[in-house]
């Protein structure tokens, strides 16, 4: 009997002990683990204390989130920082914009390009309604967004972004060159490949990233892998012209004529908003198939977006020859020839961006083939760089005059 009583007491004690342990563990867990928003309550409380010590007032929740996020960033805990920033609405009058900016930067640092792009766009999207946002953050946000678009080979969108940048007079030398000569900068270098691999590691299913990765793989000669990636995207998104264009480019490198014909014949008609790569493919394939008029249509459309496209001008030299249009061929040959030298000279700007002479070489070439808009933008940029340089002043004036009198000095028309 006594044994039974002792057992019951022991049992009750065990249960009580279990409950106590569970309660303690639950308390510790809730303190240490995230709150329902995914942010550690304990850290948040500490942040409030720290904030109060620093600023002498009680921190509200957003104060604490922002303070904690900055603290995480300084300690390299980007994931936790992003979690905190994400709880701060863009509309918050004090922290909203910086939270978006910081969150996007942290996301990009983790190569989470899709999320970073969304946050950068969120911030940039409200700039008109919020003049209080400091320009330097907006400029930086646009530069980082531009970087994402470049790595993902979304040159059409980059051009739109740069148009705004240039019109505001904000562009640095890279942006000015990228805007004026969008297809003349090498895109498949080792650094860009590393970026896209990392973007892909973070967002393996994103169609932009997969399409870009397919293009990079094509550019690396890894055609089987490229084709697989691109076929997956096209399978999931059968009307995605960017992916189709990339797949066609890959099939051309593989010289898989049957599949190429099948894909090419299934394309919708030429459209003004066709991706640039698709316009190149349309033009080159039309030339190969003996349809120079169709090639001209595609290349001329491309030139409306990118008047310095070497692919377009080189293609037009063939199209016009087939059409017997020798004056236009002569013009295309001259453009092609100068653009062939332009690439090399652009490299000089990248290596010596502070040297006005680097730009003057390029401006000479622009003048030679009537790239008036490009010459004007570039000369104005270098005019800001070296306002007292007589050669620069002359170049600015030359392009100003030529822009004011269209075609008056054209040697090619």
């Amino acid at each position, binding site marked *: 009997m006594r044994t039974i009583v002792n057992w019951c007491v022991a049992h009750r004690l065990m249960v009580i002990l279990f409950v106590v342990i569970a309660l303690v563990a639950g308390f510790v867990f809730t303190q240490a683990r995230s709150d329902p928003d995914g942010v550690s309550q304990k850290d948040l409380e500490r942040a409030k204390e720290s904030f109060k010590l620093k600023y002498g007032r009680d921190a509200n929740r957003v104060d604490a989130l922002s303070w904690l996020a900055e603290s995480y960033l300084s300690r390299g805990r980007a994931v936790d920082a992003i979690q905190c920033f994400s709880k701060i609405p863009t509309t918050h009058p004090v922290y909203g914009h910086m939270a978006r900016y910081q969150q996007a930067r942290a996301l990009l640092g983790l190569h989470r390009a899709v999320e970073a792009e969304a946050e950068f766009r969120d911030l940039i999207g409200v700039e008109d309604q919020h003049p209080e946002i400091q320009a330097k953050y907006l400029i930086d946000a646009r530069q980082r967004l531009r970087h994402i678009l470049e790595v993902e080979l979304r040159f059409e969108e980059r051009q739109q972004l740069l148009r705004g940048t240039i019109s505001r007079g904000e562009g640095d030398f890279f942006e000015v060159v990228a805007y004026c000569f969008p297809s003349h900068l090498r895109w*498949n*270098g*080792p650094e860009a*490949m*590393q970026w896209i691999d990392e973007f892909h590691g973070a967002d393996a299913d994103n169609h932009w990233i997969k399409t870009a990765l397919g293009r990079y793989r094509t*550019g*690396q*000669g890894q*055609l089987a892998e490229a084709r697989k990636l691109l076929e997956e995207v096209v399978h999931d998104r059968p009307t995605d012209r960017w992916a189709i264009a990339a797949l066609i480019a890959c099939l*051309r*490198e*593989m*010289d898989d004529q049957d599949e190429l014909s099948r894909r090419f014949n299934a394309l919708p008609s030429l459209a003004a908003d066709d991706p640039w790569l698709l316009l*190149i493919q349309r033009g*080159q394939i039309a030339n190969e198939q003996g349809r120079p008029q169709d090639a001209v249509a595609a290349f001329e459309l491309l030139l409306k977006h990118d008047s310095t*496209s*070497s*692919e*377009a*001008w*080189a*293609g037009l*030299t*063939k199209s016009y*020859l087939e059409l017997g249009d020798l004056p236009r061929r002569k013009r295309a*040959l001259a453009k*092609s*020839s100068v*653009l*062939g*030298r332009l*690439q*090399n*000279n652009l*490299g*000089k700007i990248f*290596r010596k961006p502070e040297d006005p002479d680097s730009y003057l070489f390029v401006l000479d070439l622009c003048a030679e083939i009537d790239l008036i808009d490009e010459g004007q933008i570039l000369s104005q940029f270098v005019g800001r760089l070296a306002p007292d340089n007589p050669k620069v002043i002359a170049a600015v004036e030359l392009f100003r005059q030529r822009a004011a009198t269209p075609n008056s000095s054209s040697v090619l028309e």
Partner: protein
Amino acid sequence: MPGPVQWKRFNGQVIVGLVAIAILNSGCQPSSALQQKEAPVPPISHNSSATPAPISAPAKKSSSVPFRFRDATSDWGLSFTRFDDMRGDNRIQELLGGGVALVDFDLDGSLDLFMVQGCRLPLREKTNEYTNEMYRNRGRFEKVTEVAGLVAHGYYSGCEAGDYDEDGFPDLFLSAYGSSGLWRNNGDGTFQAVADGGGLARESWTTSSAWADFNGDGLLDLFAATYAKANDDPPMICKEPRSPTGTKSCSPILFPALDDFLFVNDGHGSFAEVTRSAGITGLDGRGQGTVACDLTGDGWCDIFVANDTTPSFLYVNQTGKNEKTQISGRELLLPQFEERGIEFGVALNADGKATAAMGVGHGDYDGDGWPDLFITNFFLETNTLFRNLGGAAFADVSNSSRLGPPSRNTLAFGTEFLDVDHDGWLDLVVPTGHIEDRPWSKNEPYRMRPHLFRNDRNGRFTEVSSEAGSYFTSEWIGRGLATGDVDRDGDLDFVVGNQIDPSLLVLNETPASGSSVVIKPVGRLRSPRCGIGTRVIATGVIPQVLARDIAGGGSFLSTCAQELHCGLGDKKSIAEIQLLWPDGQVDRWSNVQAGYYVAIEGGQLFRIHFPAE
């Protein structure tokens, strides 16, 4: 020490000694010698429209033999390592390496080997440690540099062999960073440096060069491509924080391009520079590879120059339109060229982009009778195959030929077409290797595996490197390349100059799927004796015409054997060969038997059985 080289004179003219021993005319006679330069004919009779003729119907090799090559460097006693002063300064001069020449300098019928050497930089610190080397072929290579009088110290780039003085013995032009020079072959196994290079010497940076008769006077003129104006003391340094040395080589665009040179032979052992007056005025070209041959089918020798990162040049020969003028007391036509690379479609690739264009191979890969061009390029660019569309234009067929995509992850300099298995179709060898070690750049190796491509006879190529022997399955830093039948067994071997590693002799040991003839044309009267500019057309051997040229220049900084190798497939003879001499004359021969090395001179054909067969 080898004794004096043996040679013979035959009817007052030098004939290949070995061949002269065994004159076997066997009924072969020339049937005509009539074509005049004033009425040029295309290389062969065909449609010269810009529309490409269809390549013969797909005929994937049903009886393809595996390509086999053997590294015979040590067996043959070749021991040469080029010295490029790579001590961490990353001078741009160090990157290009040096050339190789396969040339029968002693006219014993065997191809000897000249290797081009570098030196310590800056040039003012050069020592006598390193010299160019000449190896005489006596079944294995014997170094004869000293006895041949070829010891020279400098930062030499390339070697172009050609008999500029028409004495029958090939002379050597050596391009260099610093002073280029001319070495005259004395005909007794020795050479003599010609004072002032006979007018060719320039303090510049000459790279590839090409001997050819550009003005139709029967004498070799010289085109010398130049790279860029670059100091070596102090060198331009470009920072690269990720590099172990903190630096990397500077981009070529930072070095101003130099003007190329054209020299005309005055017939008295000297040369006059005619660069500008001849229209060699291409802009902004850092020349690397060059080849001189008739690309347009008008009977005049044109010049292609592969330029680094800017449009390549095609100088179309217009000399026929010129009036004669007096040079050194001789009345001759001044060479005249027009740069038309863009118009002909060889200046840029299909995307309108200038590439790093390094070496250039030439040959009629598609059997349409027109010489095509293959250009090697930089890492992540594709090499470019330009198909000659009837002498009026070229088409970039890099993708459809399948030569482009496999080259994306390689970087190459020297290259050449060669018919490995004697099936009559030109295959392609491409040594590879980066310009410098870039450990900071992912997947961008310094050493690379060379490429060997089999011609599938339908306009396409298949890479067969992995089956072709240890050279092709190992990694190297390849630069200059020269092809030729080194062991005289009737097939084409090659020598490749590497950086850092020893240079290699690689012998073709492909089981013969067919027979072959190697033809050595010896020019007379108004055609250069060394055969440059000569073209052979063989008929009745394979389904289409087989055309081979001896060009000036080619590959990269190197001289390939100035012989015409004709693979005959399963035929035992050539029904007819036509030899088109640079002066417009045509010799025709019928029933030329396979299995011979054949020298043709003065309307006579001399042949000797391949000893190794």
